[in-house]
């Protein structure tokens, strides 16, 4: 059988590479973790001050590749808050649709990577294969697979034609059984349960202290979701529910993300019902931004995206503050990694689903007694995969069982 050199990037293991997470270990246990950031710092807040209000929508899209529409929506919300502008109803539904489609493909991306870290490379390939039709929908309605350039201050830039709606519905219908398969496989699998339950636990108190957000917070029982708490776009106009779990471990985070995909599909279908056969404005003209300040936030797939803008009435903002959700989520490893074994570190860090542009996850471990480097990036992934194989043996499950089961189901 041909051996595949598994893709690790964006978490590529580089030798002699500056460390991003420095772990201090005593034997097998992690004693302390340090986060060294700044490799992706591009000075976007400063660049914002020299761009026109409309240009900034395209700039903030590129803060993060995978939360690509979250930042423009939060930014537009901030400016619309400043200018006290209400967007037309049709634009609200379109914003919702784009946001939820992005949520589905982001969560599927996470499922694939988590599968890879655990040693289930089939999950990686299949989750990313199921992502492709969503990217096709995006290309069909916006023109690009990522970085959709759909948002503008006052509404959206492009309409969704009635002719596209049955195609979108069909693709989502085809995706449902595959998502069902993935979700049930995760919930039923004894190896995943042994591997992920009780690992990387974050208590309610930790979540509040660090200000953690998104699926990480909801997996620890905290019932917060900007879409419901602060409804903008069409979230207040359609029926859906917030998914929470109580255990706070990596398994709970996986469950929250998978179940959220189904809620997203519900939202999209209801929004499409409200678009089909109707006509309406997709944006209102906002000519001048008055002096003042505005705040906008949006529930990105990873948590709350926050934008603050201040204007002095000119064509550029005086100050533009951006806070991506991972800025609050990543420091939680201080609470979730300490005391855990080295082989679990990769999956705990992955469980937080850092927006890669906020960090590149190369990890290095130092022995706390000798201060010598003992492991680096690729070692962690290998250890994580080895632990899964060990648990499989203990439970008495053959390694290829997962792969075989799904081959039969689909063929």
């Amino acid at each position, binding site marked *: 059988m041909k051996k*595949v*050199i*598994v*893709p*690790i*990037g*964006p978490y*590529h*293991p*580089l*030798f*002699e*590479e*500056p460390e991003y997470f420095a772990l201090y270990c005593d034997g097998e246990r992690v004693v302390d973790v340090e986060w060294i950031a*700044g*490799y*992706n*710092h*591009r*000075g*976007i807040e*400063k*660049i914002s001050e*020299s761009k026109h209000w409309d240009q900034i929508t*395209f*700039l903030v899209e*590129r*803060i*993060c*590749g*995978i939360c*690509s529409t979250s930042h423009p929506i939060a930014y537009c919300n901030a400016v619309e808050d400043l200018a006290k502008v209400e967007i037309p109803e049709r634009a609200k539904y379109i914003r919702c649709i784009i946001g939820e489609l992005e949520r589905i493909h982001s969560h599927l*991306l996470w499922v694939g990577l988590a599968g890879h870290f655990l040693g289930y490379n089939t999950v990686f*390939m299949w989750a*990313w*294969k199921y992502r*492709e039709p969503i990217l096709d929908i995006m290309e069909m309605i916006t023109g690009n*697979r*990522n*970085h959709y350039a759909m948002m503008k201050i006052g509404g959206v830039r492009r309409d969704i034609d009635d002719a596209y709606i049955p195609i979108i519905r069909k693709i989502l219908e085809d995706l449902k059984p595959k998502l069902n398969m993935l979700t049930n496989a995760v919930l039923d699998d004894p190896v995943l349960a042994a591997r992920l339950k009780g690992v990387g636990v974050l208590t309610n108190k930790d979540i509040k202290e660090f200000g953690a957000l998104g699926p990480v917070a909801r997996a620890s029982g905290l019932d917060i979701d900007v879409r419901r708490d602060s409804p903008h776009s069409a979230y207040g106009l359609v029926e859906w529910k917030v998914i929470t779990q109580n255990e706070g471990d990596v398994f709970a985070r996986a469950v929250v993300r998978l179940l959220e995909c189904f809620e997203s599909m519900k939202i999209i279908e209801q929004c499409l019902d409200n678009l089909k056969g109707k006509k309406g404005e997709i944006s209102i003209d906002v000519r001048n931004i008055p002096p003042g300040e505005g705040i906008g936030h949006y529930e990105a797939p990873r948590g709350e995206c926050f934008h603050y803008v201040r204007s002095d009435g000119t064509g550029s903002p005086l100050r533009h503050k951006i806070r991506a959700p991972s800025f609050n989520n990543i420091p939680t490893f201080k609470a979730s990694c300490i005391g855990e074994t080295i082989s679990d570190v990769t999956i705990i860090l992955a469980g937080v689903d850092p*927006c*890669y*542009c906020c960090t*590149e996850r190369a990890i290095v471990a130092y022995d706390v007694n000798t201060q010598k480097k003992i492991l680096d990036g*690729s070692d962690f992934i290998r250890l994580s995969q080895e632990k899964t194989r060990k648990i499989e043996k203990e439970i008495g499950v053959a390694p290829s069982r997962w792969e075989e089961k799904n081959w039969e189901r689909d063929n």
Partner: protein
Amino acid sequence: MVLSLRKKALKKSLFVFHLSTGSCNNCDIEILDCLTPRFDIERFGITLAGSVKHADVLLVTGIGTLKNIERVKKLYQQMPKPGFVVAIGSCACTGGMFRDGYTMAGPLDKIIPVDVYIPGCPPKPEAMIAGIVKLLNSIK
């Protein structure tokens, strides 16, 4: 004689090493997408290398921030020659909209020599495959 054998082997099976120097990671995800079943570049003999010392091609994304310069130069030196550098995405080609940023040290061709430029934000997997094929055809 040895060199042309190496170049022949290069055309049949390319080991690719991927590196990000300060990007939004969209290009990186599209590079990974090339390995997934829809595009499946493995059927062309292209695989990702785990270490730059086994790589024939260095795929670089990102603007090249100040913190990354040393690492990029080191990796380029460690790549066995003949090796090629491919700049993927508008950020690596020209710096894109971040070229006025205060941490900008690129664009990439100011730091290391670049052989192929694949523009786009992000370039579609088809565009990346076309770029690699052009590179392979140009190896004589």
